[in-house]
């Protein structure tokens, strides 16, 4: 069988992925019409391109349905429990950088570090009768970070989009979200806690530890990684 390489199916992430492979002499092409989700990896025999939404790639890697995949380290850590046992990082690709951070209103002049957030959460719970709410879609990463930091009296509220707006809309007191420039945060009157960096993410080529490998797939993998190593 052919080795399956999962890449993001649209947008800048897809273009950058194609560029990254292209720069290493591995030209990726989408075959058929623009709408068709298939493609080929030029130069190496026996590789099937699988175009997927970036958010689905961690799941497919974890299940071993694709051998290799390109996605953000943030999504892998968030969506795959015990991720190191299921996937392996082959190459950081140098684009798609984004930081998962904790941000609070700028007017909270008394809160600069996670310790302050914990103290503010204690007082907030007494004053308002409920835990201080942090809006996020990165539940696992945020929960693990706050547990390590020993923060209590908070709760996570799910926010799948426009997370920065939740504070102004009074559905959360703080946010944990991805940012690259911090501009959206500033526009929403939020500031990043100075020790509130949870994870620094970038697009990364991952290898599944769960996918079955036959001789042809191994051969294709050897050739692909050989080419990538040459480039370095």
């Amino acid at each position, binding site marked *: 069988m052919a080795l399956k390489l999962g890449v993001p199916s649209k947008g800048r992430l897809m273009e950058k992925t194609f560029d990254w492979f292209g720069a290493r002499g591995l030209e990726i092409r989408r075959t058929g019409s623009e709408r068709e989700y298939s493609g080929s990896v030029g130069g190496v025999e026996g590789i099937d391109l699988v175009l997927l939404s970036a958010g689905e790639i961690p799941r497919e890697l974890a299940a071993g349905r694709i051998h290799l995949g390109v996605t953000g380290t943030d999504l892998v850590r968030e969506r795959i429990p015990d991720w190191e046992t299921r996937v392996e990082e082959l190459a950081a690709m140098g684009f798609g950088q984004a930081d998962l951070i904790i941000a609070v*209103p700028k007017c909270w002049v008394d809160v600069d570090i996670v310790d302050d957030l914990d103290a503010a959460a204690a007082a907030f719970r007494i004053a308002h009768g409920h835990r201080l709410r942090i809006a996020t879609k990165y539940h696992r990463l945020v929960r693990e970070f706050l547990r390590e*930091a*020993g923060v209590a009296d908070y709760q*996570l509220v799910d926010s799948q989009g426009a997370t920065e707006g939740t504070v102004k809309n*009074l559905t959360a*007191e703080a946010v944990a979200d991805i940012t690259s420039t911090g501009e959206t945060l500033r526009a929403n009157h939020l500031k990043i806690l100075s020790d509130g960096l949870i994870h620094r993410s970038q697009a990364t080529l991952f290898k599944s530890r769960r996918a079955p490998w036959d001789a042809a797939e191994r051969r294709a993998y050897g050739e692909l990684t050989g080419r990538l190593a040459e480039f370095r």
Partner: protein
Amino acid sequence: MPSKQEVRAEAARLQAFFRGAGVREIEPDVLQPAETLLDLYGEDIRARAYVTADPLKGEQMMRPDFTVPVVLWHVESGAGEARYSYAGEVFRRQERPEPGRSNEYFQVGLEIFDAADPAEAEAEIFARFAAALVPLGLRAAMGDIGLLTAAVQGLVTSAPRRAALMRHIWRPRRFRALLDRYAGRAKVPHARKLLLAALERQAPEEIISDAGLIVGLREPAEIVARMRRLQEEAAEPPIPAHAVEMIDDLLEIRETPSNALDRLRDIAVDLPALEPAVERLERRLDAMRGHGVDLDSVEFEANYGRTTMEYYDGFVFGFYAGGRPHLPPVASGGRYDALTRVLARGREIPAVGGMIRPGLVLELSREGL
């Protein structure tokens, strides 16, 4: 691995040890209100319990243990004193594989709600568990969270500092960090220094409005209050080194119960606030001897029970398979007065209890230790 039928039969056999003396056998629901559990344990419980949704009742949680369901049962029944036993499955979500721990397993337990004689109730629980588990020759350990809370309450420092330490009793690392800061051993964060300097020149309200638009539910008055608190905190003298050492000495105790009692009496000479807790321990040890417990075979660890998610705030105990350190405790339990206070909305019902893992009992009795 024993089959489910076998474990159920073992659970029934163990539950029989808890019969008599007015013990009611109850069967709390598997589905519990998620809000109650989240409110108690915080976000961490989501990583450890299965959450499901009911269209009418809202978010539900599959019971991760029996303590909260039994307390809720008791509160609803309105009874004053009561004893309950139960046997059934609990459900634990796992973020990563944990050897020796299943996602669903049986627990058999006994819970005593009784204010009359706490030491006696604690001794009885321990003795009944020891009797049920005697053939396995397990290692027994115990501790008392009440000693640490008494020591914290006895610290000569401000009430807010004591409250902050009390809040993190169950998070040992955070507790340590706070203690170091209050003892003047940790550096004052840079931003805190800047804020304190700004407060010398400007009114807190002004500092807030200079920072930008006011957004969110946390009001300026709350921010001002915290700034005032930070100012007070900066002006407070550090907790003296000898007081921190006393807490360190206390937490290091790992002895036979009678030696531990001697050490605690020594510490209480310098820390009189500890005395009532030491007396409680002494009464408990006497009561345990009265129940025929061989105290020399039990290890007393002052730090015991501080990292479990339970709400234990006094006597704590556990039974372990000595040669198999990776296994979870075969049985564990303790006193949880604070939990009843929260769940009964202020009406405290002193309670002590514990649970046994019948699956583990069966496994150990087959394999030997």
